C-alpha cells in the first residue's frame, strides 16, 4: 500500500522509542549494568531474609501454641467446628490428653468433658473454678428424647467386631451415611477373639484414621476399584449375579453421590477396645450339642457386649445404639427416626431382613430374636433347667412366639410400633438411662435366655418398654450357604452349556 502513497516516505520499522519521544519524556537516570545486577541481588537477598524472619516467627508461634494445647487437642480443630461446638451449649472443653502413649503406661485419659459451671454454681459456696480433674454431671440432662431443632443429645454407637475385616468398608460407608450430627456421636469398637492372621484391628485402625481425616471415601473407592478390577475371586462372589435387580439397584444408590452434607464429617470420639475372651469349652454335651453350643455362644457374646458397654458408656450419653457390622443398607436417618418413639418406648429395634437370590425367593427374615412372648414359651421355660437357654428357630424349643420379622408388610406404615419382649442385637437403639439402671446383656442364663433376648426381658422387668418396628426394615448382607453355592454353580454350568440364564 505504501508504494502508492506518493510523497510519504516511510523508512524501515520505526524504533519503539524514538529520539523524538525521548525529548519529551522525563529522563530516567542511567544505570550501569553491573549496578543493576548488584541491586537486584541485594533486594532479593533482603526479601529472602525477610521471608525467613516472618516464617520463623509465625512457625515458632504455631509450635508454641501446639505445645501448650497438647493437653486439649480439641482446640486444634478448625474454626468452623469450634463454632459448631460452641453452639451446642458446651462451656468449653477441658480435656486430658487422649494421645496414644505406650500401651503399658497411660494416664487416666478421660476424654473431654463439658466444663463444670452448669449445675454447681448455685451450690458453690466458694467461687474457685472446678479443677480439671473433677467432673460433674446431672443425669437429668441426659434423658433421651425425640430429636428437635435444638438437639444436643449424644449418642454412643457401639459395634462389636470379630473377624470382621471383610465387612469393614461396608460398615464405614454405613457410618458415614448416618445423617445424625456426627459431632454428637461417639463410636466405640470392641475387637475380640479374632483368628490368627485376621487383620481386623489393623484395617480398623487404618479406616478410622482415614475417617477422622476425611480421606476415607477416596480410600474405599480406590480399594473397590482395585478389588473389582483384579478379576475373578471364585464362585462365592458369583452369587451377586443372582440377587434381585431392584435390591442391587437400591444398594448402588445408597452408596453413590450425592451424599448428605455431613457425610465425611469426623465423629466426636472413636475408641477401639481390644479384649480376647478365649474359647469357651462346654462340658457334658448331649447329642443335641448344636443347640447347646448356641447357649454358650450367646453368653460369650453377651459378655463381649457388657465389656464394651461398661468401658465406653459415659455419664453424658443420652442414647446408646448397638449396631452389627454386617448390615448392608439402612436409612441414613435411622437414629432420628427411631428416637421419635422416645416418649413411649425406651428401647426400639427395626425389622431386619436379608436379600436372597432370585431362585430362592428374593428376600427372607433375618433376625428372629425380636419377638413377643407367648404362653407356650413361658410354660416351656418353667419346665427347663435354670441354665437352659431357649434359642429361637430350633425344634427343641417350640416357643410359638410371634416374631417381628414375620409380621412385616412391605407396604405397611413404617411408623407402626409393637411391644416386644425379646430383641435381636443387629440394631438396637436404647436410652442410656436403661443401661444406667443396670440393664445389660446377661452372660448367664437369665429367665432362660442370654444376651440380647435376656436384655429385652431384663429391661421389661425394670419397668421399661421395648418396641419393634415391623414395617421399617434394614437389610443384612447375604452370605450364601453351602447349599446355595451348589445351586448357583449348577445354574452356572447350565448357563454355559445352554447359553441362556433361564
Amino acid at each position: 500500500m505504501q508504494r502508492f502513497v506518493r510523497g510519504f516516505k516511510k523508512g524501515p520499522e520505526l524504533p519503539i522509542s524514538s529520539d523524538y519521544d525521548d525529548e519529551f519524556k522525563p529522563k530516567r537516570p542511567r544505570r550501569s549494568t553491573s549496578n543493576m545486577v548488584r541491586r537486584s541481588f541485594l533486594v532479593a537477598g533482603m526479601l529472602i531474609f525477610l521471608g525467613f524472619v516472618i516464617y520463623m516467627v509465625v512457625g515458632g508461634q504455631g509450635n508454641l501454641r501446639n505445645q501448650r494445647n497438647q493437653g486439649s487437642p480439641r482446640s486444634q480443630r478448625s474454626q468452623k467446628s469450634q463454632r459448631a461446638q460452641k453452639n451446642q451449649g458446651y462451656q468449653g472443653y477441658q480435656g486430658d490428653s487422649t494421645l496414644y502413649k505406650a500401651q503399658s503406661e497411660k494416664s487416666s485419659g478421660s476424654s473431654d468433658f463439658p466444663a463444670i459451671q452448669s449445675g454447681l454454681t448455685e451450690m458453690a459456696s466458694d467461687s474457685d473454678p472446678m479443677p480439671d480433674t473433677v467432673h460433674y454431671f446431672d443425669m437429668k440432662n441426659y434423658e433421651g428424647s425425640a430429636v428437635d431443632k435444638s438437639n444436643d443429645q449424644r449418642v454412643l454407637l457401639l459395634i462389636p467386631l470379630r473377624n470382621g475385616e471383610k465387612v469393614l468398608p461396608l460398615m464405614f460407608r454405613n457410618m458415614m451415611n448416618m445423617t445424625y450430627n456426627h459431632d454428637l456421636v461417639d463410636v466405640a469398637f470392641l475387637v475380640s477373639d479374632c483368628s490368627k492372621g485376621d487383620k481386623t484391628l489393623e484395617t480398623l485402625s487404618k479406616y478410622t484414621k482415614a475417617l477422622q481425616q476425611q480421606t476415607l471415601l477416596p480410600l474405599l473407592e480406590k480399594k473397590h476399584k482395585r478389588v473389582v478390577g483384579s478379576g475373578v475371586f471364585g464362585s462365592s462372589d458369583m452369587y451377586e449375579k443372582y440377587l434381585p435387580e431392584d435390591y442391587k439397584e437400591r444398594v448402588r444408590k445408597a452408596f453413590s453421590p450425592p451424599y448428605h452434607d455431613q457425610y465425611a464429617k469426623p465423629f466426636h470420639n472413636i475408641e477401639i477396645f481390644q479384649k480376647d475372651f478365649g474359647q469357651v469349652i462346654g462340658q457334658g454335651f448331649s447329642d443335641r450339642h448344636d443347640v447347646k453350643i448356641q447357649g454358650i455362644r450367646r453368653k460369650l457374646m453377651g459378655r463381649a457386649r457388657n465389656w464394651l458397654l461398661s468401658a465406653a458408656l459415659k455419664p453424658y450419653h443420652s442414647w446408646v445404639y448397638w449396631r452389627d457390622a454386617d448390615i448392608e443398607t439402612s436409612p441414613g436417618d435411622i437414629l432420628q427416626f427411631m428416637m421419635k418413639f422416645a416418649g413411649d418406648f425406651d428401647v426400639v429395634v427395626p425389622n431386619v431382613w436379608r436379600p436372597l437370590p432370585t431362585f430362592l425367593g428374593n428376600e427372607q427374615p433375618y433376625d428372629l430374636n425380636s419377638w413377643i412372648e407367648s404362653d407356650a414359651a413361658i410354660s416351656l421355660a418353667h419346665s427347663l433347667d435354670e441354665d437352659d437357654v431357649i434359642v429361637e428357630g430350633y425344634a427343641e424349643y417350640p416357643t410359638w412366639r410371634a416374631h417381628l420379622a414375620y409380621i412385616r408388610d412391605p407396604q405397611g406404615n413404617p411408623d407402626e410400633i409393637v411391644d416386644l419382649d425379646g430383641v435381636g442385637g443387629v440394631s438396637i437403639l436404647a436410652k442410656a438411662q436403661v443401661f444406667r439402671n443396670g440393664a445389660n446383656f446377661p452372660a448367664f442364663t437369665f429367665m432362660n435366655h442370654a444376651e440380647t433376648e435376656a436384655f429385652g426381658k431384663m429391661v421389661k422387668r425394670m419397668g421399661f418398654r421395648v418396641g419393634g418396628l415391623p414395617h421399617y426394615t434394614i437389610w443384612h448382607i447375604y452370605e450364601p450357604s453351602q447349599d446355595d453355592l451348589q445351586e448357583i454353580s449348577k445354574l452356572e454350568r447350565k448357563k454355559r452349556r445352554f447359553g441362556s440364564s433361564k
Partner: protein
Amino acid sequence: MLPLKYRRLPRLFRSGPVNFIVVIGALVILGFYLLSTDTTSKANSPYKYRKVDNDPFDFAQAPGDHITHYDLNKLTSTSDSLKHKERVLILTPMAKFHQGYWDNLLKLSYPRDLLELGFILPRTKEGDEALRSLEKVVKRVQNPKSKTPKFSGVTILRQDTDAVESQAEKDRHAFKAQKKRRSQMATARNSLLFTTLGPFTSWVLWLDADVVESPTSLIEDLTAHNKAILAANCWQRFYDDEKKENSIRPYDYNNWVESDEGLRIASQLDDDEIIVEGYADMATFRPLMAHFYDANGDPNVEMQLDGVGGTCLLVKSEVHRDGAMFPNFPFYHLIETEGFSKMAKRLGYEVFGLPNYLVYHYNE
C-alpha cells in the same frame, strides 16, 4: 531498552528488576515450603502427630484427638496391686456428707494417682447440701495450685430419678420401705458404676458414705487377698451406757451365708417379693458375718459368703465388666448388693468376706 548483552536473559528478567525479584522471592518461598520438615511446616494443620517407628499397629500416628486405642487384655487385678500400679475406682453413693468419711478417705495410704473417686447424690434437698459440702472438700484437695497429692479423677453425678424422701435412721430401716429404698439404691449404684468404669480400672471399691473409720492400708489389705468379691466387716463405735465405756457393735447384716431356712422362705415367695436380712418378720437364720468377728482372731481370715452388703466391698473390675450389677428388681428374691453377689455367682465368681477385718460406721 536493555543493553545488548542482556538480551540473552529470559524475557521476564529483561522487563525490569521488579519482576526478577518477584520470581526469586516466589522460588524462595516455594523452597521453604517444600524443604521444611513436618513438625514446623504444618503449624496450622488441625492434626499434628509424630512418627513412632516401633509401633506395629501404627496407632501412634493417629491424630491427637478423636481416636484412642485400649488393650483391655493388659488390665490386671492381682494380689500385688501396688507393684502393678493397678487403679482403684472408689464409688460412694452419698445421701449425706460426713466429714469423718472424707477424712478417712484422705488418710488412705494407697497412692492417690492410682485412685479415682465417683459419687452419686440423690435429687433431694439433702442431696443438695451434701453436694455443697462435697464440692468444697473436693476442690480443696484437687486444687491445682495446692501441693496436696491429687486423686486421678473425681466424678460427681446427680441422679435423675427421685429418691425416697427421708433418710433418717429409723425410717430407713422400716421393713416395708426397704424394697423401694434398696431398689433406688441399686439404680444409683448402677448409674454410678457403668458411667465411671473406664478402660483403666482394675478394682472397684464400694465404700458407703457413712463409713468413717478404716485402716489406712485398706486397699492394700483387701487387694492382697486377690478375690473377685471381698467384703470387710462393718461395725459401729458407740458409747455403752450400761457399762459406761466405749464399745463396738455389729452394723452391716447384709454379709451372710445362705441357710436352708432362707432357701425355704424364698421358694414360697412370689416372684416379686424380696427377702431382707435382720427383720423379725422374716427370720432366715442365716449365719451373719457380722457375728463372726473375733477380736483376737487373724484379720486375714476369709469366709465364703452368699450375700454381701455395700458398706465396704472390693470387686474386681472384670466381675462388673462381665455384667454383674445391682439388680433393682427382685432377682432370686434378692435385691441390690445381695442380688449382686447372687448374679456374680451365676457368672461363676466366688464371694468372700473378712470377718475379723473391721471398718466402722458412723453413729447417729
